[in-house]
């Protein structure tokens, strides 16, 4: 029994954190839904689920990179709104699409630079950035509107060989993230830096000759770029620019990462866990709609399930 619960919750002393239990929970929700309502397994609904979950999957995966370092990025929500606002400025896709990623990289770089060079706590640095970006977004686009390049709209709504395009967005996101995290020295260095931070020896990785600052900056750049990717996706989905579309999304992203077993103290976590975390949240939202749970009680249920999943993830270390 204890061995089993260890297996499920623990993988204590593993680097992936706890992801089996969230996976079981995701499966349990899916099972419950398919028994509860015929509409869940219906093709149309399953096709809806992918684009519904996609922005969260993308943003959470980006967020995971900085959380693995023991950092946090509260500016991703604003980054998403900002991206849609830039899109709605008008202009051809081949200009706007590269432009938003350059801007995102710049924002991520600024976050990382401030955190590493000036010793500013990530929460403060990225919270400030959240305000600043939101301010700029409101200047660019005081209210929602404008048009989004057609190519973006069709890249979200269309399909290829009968497979809806959002699926390819997902595959692309996961491939890129996988390569960065598991297929490069950078990924290993992220774990190393985060491991040092979480064990209280901030410069442990630095003493191994790892370019810690550069890697930290890079992680924030990656996080911002994934947020921008989610912004591009959302711009295509809501077909306009919107200054509020990303509001509070950073909290959803952090929650998804945490549900998936990645530890906020750094060094422990996994890509698949993060995807599972995002899926738990998306399934929950979709499931409550399909089973006609009253909107007055949906928040409580969502919170309670979060609480449950997290409460089962007891860790060795105390803290954030």
């Amino acid at each position, binding site marked *: 029994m204890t061995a089993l619960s260890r297996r499920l919750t623990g993988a204590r002393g593993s680097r992936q954190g706890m992801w089996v239990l969230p996976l079981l929970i995701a499966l349990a929700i899916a099972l419950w839904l398919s028994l509860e309502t015929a509409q869940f397994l219906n093709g149309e609904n399953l096709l809806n689920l992918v684009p519904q979950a996609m922005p969260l999957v993308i943003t959470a995966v980006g967020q995971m990179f900085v959380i693995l370092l023991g950092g946090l990025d509260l500016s991703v929500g604003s980054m998403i709104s900002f991206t849609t606002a830039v899109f709605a400025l008008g202009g051809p896709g081949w200009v706007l699409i590269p432009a938003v990623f350059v801007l995102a990289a710049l924002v991520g770089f600024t976050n990382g630079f401030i955190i590493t060079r000036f010793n500013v706590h990530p929460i403060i640095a990225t919270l400030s950035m959240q305000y600043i970006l939101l301010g700029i977004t409101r200047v660019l686009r005081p209210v929602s509107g404008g048009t989004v390049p057609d190519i973006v709209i069709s890249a979200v709504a269309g399909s290829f060989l009968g497979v809806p395009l959002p699926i390819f967005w997902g595959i692309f996101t996961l491939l890129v993230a996988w390569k960065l995290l598991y297929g490069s020295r950078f990924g*290993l260095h992220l774990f190393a830096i985060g491991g040092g931070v979480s064990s209280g020896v901030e410069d442990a990785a630095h003493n191994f000759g790892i370019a810690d600052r550069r890697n930290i900056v890079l992680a924030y750049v990656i996080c911002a770029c994934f947020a921008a990717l989610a912004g591009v996706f959302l711009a295509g989905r809501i077909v306009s620019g919107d200054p509020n579309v990303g509001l509070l999304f950073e909290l959803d992203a952090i929650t998804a990462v945490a549900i998936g077993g990645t530890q906020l103290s750094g060094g422990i976590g996994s890509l698949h866990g993060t995807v599972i975390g995002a899926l738990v949240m998306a399934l929950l939202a979709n499931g409550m709609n399909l089973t006609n749970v009253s909107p007055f009680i949906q928040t409580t249920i969502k919170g309670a399930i979060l609480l449950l999943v997290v409460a089962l993830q007891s860790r060795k270390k105390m803290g954030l």
Partner: protein
Amino acid sequence: MKTPVAKILVEMSEIRKAFAGTAALKGVSIALQSGSVHALMGENGAGKSTLMKILAGVHQPDSGAILREGRQVVFHKPKDALEAGISTVFQELSLLPNLTIAENMFLGREPVTAFGGVDHRRMRREAGKALAELGLRLDPGTLVSRLSIAERQFVEIAHGIMTDASVFILDEPTAALNAADVEILNRHIRRLKDEGKAVVYISHRMDEIFAICDTVTVLKDGELVGTRAIAEMTPASLIAMMVGRELTDLFPQRGDASGPVVLSVEDFRITERSRPFSLSLSRGEIVALAGLEGQGQQRFLRSLVGQYHPFAGRVTIKNKPLSLPVSPGGGVRRLQAMGVGFVPEDRKEDGLFLGLSVAHNIAAALHSKRSELAFAAGYQRLIADTMSSLAVKASGPAAAVGTLSGGNQQKVLLGRYLCADIDILLVEEPTRGVDIGAKSEIYRLLRDFALKGGAVLVLSRETVELIGLCDRICVVHNDTIVTEMPAADATEHNILDAALSANGEANGARGERR
């Protein structure tokens, strides 16, 4: 043995370094020769680690120069030093717990595959080979968080010496190792030397210095005392050079150990499969737990403070039973309330509040006796007394403990328990990384504590220390006590003998580590 022409690989000249106003190095020069092992000696806080951290690129000197094979170099960061062929095993363990052994060993210089990914297979293979050369049978895929301190130390050493460098710095690599392990390390140091590398070896263990070093440089209070060939030195003259006086008696006189029993352990079984044992500790007595690494001595001690659940047994402290298992969260407090102090071996991780003042560190255990809502006394007097009786070298009680040298940190840690109202001490590694002068002081402190009616149970990897300090020695093997002997009759040889050949099964020194 061929003797290649020795050349100077590194020269550090007139190095100065101050931390927040206090000078750690006041113009020290040192030259490292190829094919030579260079000992760096000095009391705690003399500046040895600081000098080497400068060479490793961790700190930057305030002034002075580093010459690498005659050319001046500047190391801004550790990576620069690594790239210049200088590899370091740091004094403080700094492996990353969430990475595997192989990853730790190759961190910062991982081999890559054709696709740009980390070549894990190669890393494991080579790490496995390196570990095997050090006589370790560990899976290179094991996470470091699962290793014991000694195993970590070995991994750290493996990381440091299995590199393609020409200068190797080993800052107290043997602090957590036992004699057999030290011998393995020495073999490798000799190999490096034969390959024409320069090795800097920092240790407080005199025998090691004389066994493998060629040259010794002695520092005192950040100043260079001198550099000599080991061949010209004797242990006594080296100590004299370090402390400015001859140290006659390292160990204090033994006392009278016939007081009443204060701690008795009966039919104790560490695990389900281990054999039961009993142990008693009397007032005025210092008892040792000896044995090879990982034989259960630490597990036993820590099950008294609740970190482990023993399988069975009865423990009585001053005639009051201690109900087992002890709660993991409250065990330390429980024992403190019964007058028992526990001093953990890893002072950096488990012992000290590195960022807080000496005063806070010393007083920490005193507060625990009172209710949360009670006023916290200042204990200025007691803190000052403790600092002076332990001769803690610090700018004052407000100095952060993390800025003290290793030996002084250890004194602060012991001071915490000595000044609390405690009459039984459970001590792990009382002198890890402590210089010979401080060692002697610590031994005296523990003996004084016993003489005043206290009782001490000590666990240490240094057999000589156990023999010299204690009254009785219990040798632990395979999770049970196999022999008990009066320390006066014990020798390193018969302890090792008992530790190795208990039950007639001849376990290799490096047998069941895990």
